[in-house]
């Protein structure tokens, strides 16, 4: 068995080198496929970064009436923290609220506050959802709870609903587009890859027939082609990594300009940090795909 494997490795390497142009053409197709996959990964990262940035900038603020006790606020905070869709709930006391107000609007604070005898602000709870799409659900939970509503200043919720719902809708659309793109890219990748291997095997059909005629078993014929296809995957992964690096280097300044003040999208940092899992996953997926494609393409020609 080892002898067959070692001979198959030799045949695979020989065929790879001696059919240079065919190998190059197949390799180029695989590089394109991998580049498509990497583009998809990059887009997914950019989408996640954008949505996460948006998520951090949005929250639901529950403004309690000034007479609501701290213990009631704490109880509601604990209740909300139990909600799966809620990422965090921050409680802001009336004093903290006043400090923030003074910092943000010093002119108003200077003119109005001296006229008031006491702090007019109540407790505030700032709620952040895990995902943008969760905000409407959280708002519904709050609005459907009559106890909460009786303690709240309802005016602020109208703004929160409009903003969070549009954000959730935008996130949903972005996710749908990303999913559609991902599916399209994956289907295209599989078709392109399968055809590239089929063409490669088709151009070897006469050789396969000769091998059969001199008494080679199907396994003996199949193994070198399978190994060669894995070799294609290995080489295309290396070359594609170089291509991806230069593509990121080129596109990073464009991304920086495009998303300035919106989100910090650092593709190179992301790909460097995720290089190992991405490369391993791509190698396994591509190798499996090429082994299956090779075996299917060979099946027809092995019936001699």
């Amino acid at each position, binding site marked *: 068995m080892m*002898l067959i494997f070692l001979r198959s490795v030799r045949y695979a390497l020989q*065929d790879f080198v001696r059919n240079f142009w065919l190998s190059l053409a197949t390799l180029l197709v695989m590089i394109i496929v991998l580049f498509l996959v990497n583009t998809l990964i990059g887009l997914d990262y950019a989408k996640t970064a954008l949505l996460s940035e948006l998520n951090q900038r949005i929250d639901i603020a529950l403004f309690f009436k000034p007479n609501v006790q701290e213990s009631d606020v704490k109880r509601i905070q604990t209740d909300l923290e139990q909600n799966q869709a809620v990422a965090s709930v921050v409680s802001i006391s009336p004093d903290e609220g006043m400090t923030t107000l003074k910092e943000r609007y010093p002119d108003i604070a200077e003119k109005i506050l001296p006229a008031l005898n006491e702090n007019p602000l109540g407790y505030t709870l700032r709620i952040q959802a895990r995902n943008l799409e969760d905000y409407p659900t959280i708002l519904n939970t709050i609005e459907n709870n009559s106890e909460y509503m009786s303690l709240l200043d309802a005016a602020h919720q109208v703004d929160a609903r409009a903003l969070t719902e549009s954000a959730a809708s935008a996130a949903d659309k972005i996710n749908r587009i990303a999913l559609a793109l991902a599916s399209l890219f994956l289907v295209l990748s599989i078709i392109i890859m399968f055809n590239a291997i089929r063409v490669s095997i088709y151009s070897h059909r006469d*050789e396969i027939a000769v*091998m*059969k*005629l*001199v*008494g080679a*078993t199907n396994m003996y014929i199949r193994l070198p082609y399978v190994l060669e296809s894995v070799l294609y995957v290995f080489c295309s992964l290396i070359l594609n990594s170089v291509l991806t690096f230069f593509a990121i280097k080129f596109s990073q300044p464009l991304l920086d300009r495009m998303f300035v003040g919106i989100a910090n999208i650092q593709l190179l940092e992301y790909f460097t940090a995720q290089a190992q899992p991405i490369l391993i996953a791509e190698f396994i997926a591509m190798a499996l795909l090429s082994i299956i494609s090779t075996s299917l393409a060979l099946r027809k020609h092995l019936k001699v």
Partner: protein
Amino acid sequence: MIHLKNLTKVYPPSTVAIKDVTLDVEPGEFVSIVGQSGCGKSTLVKLLMAEERPTEGEIVIGGWNITHIKKREIPVLRKQIGVIFQDFKLLPKKTAFENIRFALEVSGHKRREIDKVVHQVLGLVSLRDQAHQYPNQLSGGEQQRVAIARSLVHRPKLLMADEPTGNLDAITSREIIDLLQKINDFGTTVLLVSHDREIVNNLRRRVITLDHGHVISDQARGKYVL
């Protein structure tokens, strides 16, 4: 060596390639099978090497009934019979040496043993100097000699030659036939399929003539009669 009994091959829907052929070839014989194009000569070779299955009848080679040969047994059969073709059927991206070596490697032979046998057969077909050339660097006659060398590596009891001189000039054809005769002299049964009148007549050996799938003549020292 070969026993065919009422052998018939019909390609769907109703093309009869071989019809009710019964014949025996003894070990060590040199038999020419002749006939016009489409008479069933190549189909007969395909049936003998299990590339096609008979519709009816029986095929026995060297005592092995291959009429209903299993798929996994075909490689074993093909290692036991040597076959050469008009178009040589060499692997274009392998050198002459590698082409011959491949036939032994598929049988799992060790490298040292393979190298020894390959050198021997290359010597037999006088191609030692061209051992490391690719098929496209060799002449037609040289390519056919590589194919013959490859067919001999398993020391087959039967060598089938399907129009081996079809692509060669008269002088080279003569050389190839001489080589086949030399191989026959060593005891290998040779089955030559040809439509070359001159070659068959010069051989003065057994000639079986096929016409529309039927055996119409079988002469011990025959001539091309069509």
